[in-house]
């Protein structure tokens, strides 16, 4: 059975003409690392909230379809069960803080304390989250005085400390500089293999470091679902999100007619060297 399953979800915001999600279906397995790509206003945040069980909520209901985890639709989960199962980290860092902590350390400890875990367990979780998100040196700071990028890492640390089975991240690296981004991706990659991570991104490079399965969200549906190579080479993806720098270089060479027939465009530096050698030989 799929871990999280979306079935024929049709959703529009009240008063909006066009639907944001137009009969979307998709399933995620345990331990998958998935990147869902889409340009601005394509519905990333909306889909993320549905996956995390934050919708349906009040007047925001689907006209058709539903989302379930472990075969049980989200509305049947209690808030506490859901908190242990899935953590969602939204796009605006300052809105992810509880406002119930005077220090970064307490902010991360807040969730585990609410679960009434033993003190030693709480501390172990906080230390681990501090390390993963590179926040050790900020442990004593007031969360609201952190920079945007620091707040972003803090909100992810707080989510990790809940030790969910699924982590849903809405543009988690948007406020990070390239170096912290690479560090952060490497750390996420090192998280326990059983953890399912779903990231929503507009940027290609960070997604490549993290996910093995890629999707493109377009006009309310998942239009491509597969390996990074198939998704990033899809015309619609290139049109809306562009290419990685390496792919762009290879693409220009191909446009100039000097790229070998049948050789795939490289996406990352790791495979590029080989591809460019072959191209030069041809």
């Amino acid at each position, binding site marked *: 059975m799929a871990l999280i399953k979306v079935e024929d979800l049709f959703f529009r915001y009240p008063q909006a003409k066009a639907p944001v999600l137009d009969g979307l279906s998709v399933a995620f397995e345990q331990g998958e690392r998935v990147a869902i790509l889409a340009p601005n206003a394509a519905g990333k945040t909306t889909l993320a909230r549905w996956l995390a069980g*934050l919708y349906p909520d009040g007047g925001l209901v689907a006209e058709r379809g539903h989302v379930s985890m472990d075969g049980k639709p989200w509305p049947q989960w209690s*808030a*506490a069960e*859901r*908190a*242990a199962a899935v*953590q*969602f980290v939204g796009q605006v860092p*300052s*809105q*992810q*803080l*509880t*406002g*119930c*902590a*005077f*220090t970064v*350390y*307490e902010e991360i*400890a*807040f*969730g*585990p*304390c*609410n*679960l*009434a*875990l*033993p*003190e030693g367990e*709480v*501390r172990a979780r906080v230390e681990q989250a501090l390390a993963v998100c590179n926040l050790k040196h900020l*442990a*004593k*700071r*007031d969360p*609201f*005085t952190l920079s945007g990028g620091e707040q972003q890492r803090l909100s992810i640390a*707080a*989510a990790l400390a*809940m030790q969910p089975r699924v982590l849903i991240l809405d543009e988690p690296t948007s406020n990070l500089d390239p170096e912290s981004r690479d560090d952060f991706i490497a750390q996420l990659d090192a998280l326990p293999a059983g953890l399912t991570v779903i990231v929503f991104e507009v940027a290609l490079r960070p997604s490549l470091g993290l996910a093995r399965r890629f999707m493109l969200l377009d006009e309310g549906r998942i239009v491509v679902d597969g390996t990074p190579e198939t998704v990033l080479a899809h015309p619609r993806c290139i049109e809306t999100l562009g290419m990685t720098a390496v792919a762009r270089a290879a693409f220009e060479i191909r446009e100039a007619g000097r790229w070998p027939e049948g050789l795939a465009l490289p996406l990352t530096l790791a495979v590029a060297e080989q591809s460019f050698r072959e191209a030069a030989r041809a």
Partner: protein
Amino acid sequence: MSSRSGPQSGQTALLFLPGDSLLHRANPLTSLIFMLWMISAAAVLPTIGTTILIVAGVALSFAMGVGPRVTKRLVITMLPLLVALLVVHGFLVSRPDFIPLVGPLTYSPTGLEYAAQVVTRIGAMLTASLIFVTTTHPGDILKSLDQRGVSPGVSYLIASPLLLIEPFSERAKAIRDAQRARGLDLTSTFKARFKALPALLIPLITLALSDLDHRASILNSRAFRAQKHRTVIDAPPDDRFQVWLRRVLIVLAIAQLGIPLLWR
């Protein structure tokens, strides 16, 4: 992370001054009840008593290493009040015992006495509160409430004004800057500033309301109130002596308030 949150954090601590005095080391509940006892004493003592209380309180604040801050706040708050009450009750409000002073000026001894009584009473209560907030970190109050088994909903309700001051003042600054960039006049006359007030307050309130929504969803996702009690980390230490001291102070406070009522 061995010590308590007290000496560690920054802005939100407000008037708190890190230190290692007796009151800094005391359990926050002990300090709280000590403050309440002082306030109850200030409510019933005559002027001479409240004056002694102020002097003793200020002396105590110096002994606890928070003297300058307590004294400064006390003077800034009380001086205008003292002058206003002395003038109004001593010279302006008509009383039967008016005595000529110089020229047409007359004054009333009972009026002055009354003003002194009110000022010293408020002053003593303020001294008590100032000693409390300068020696007790708000985070530690929260922890000791958690530790006592006070329901998380209640203790965070109490602490939220302190916790939210920082994000709120940040937000207010951002709104002011944004409005100014769009030509709102905040620099010239008082009237112009007054007229600008709605433009600043309305977004602040709207945003606060939308924040409530976000915060409720975040608190849910962190399992807030999922269990009856929370784990308390770095709990402020407590001991039997302090437990008994608190009981004695509570009984004293109630007796102080009750006995004068029975007397009458």
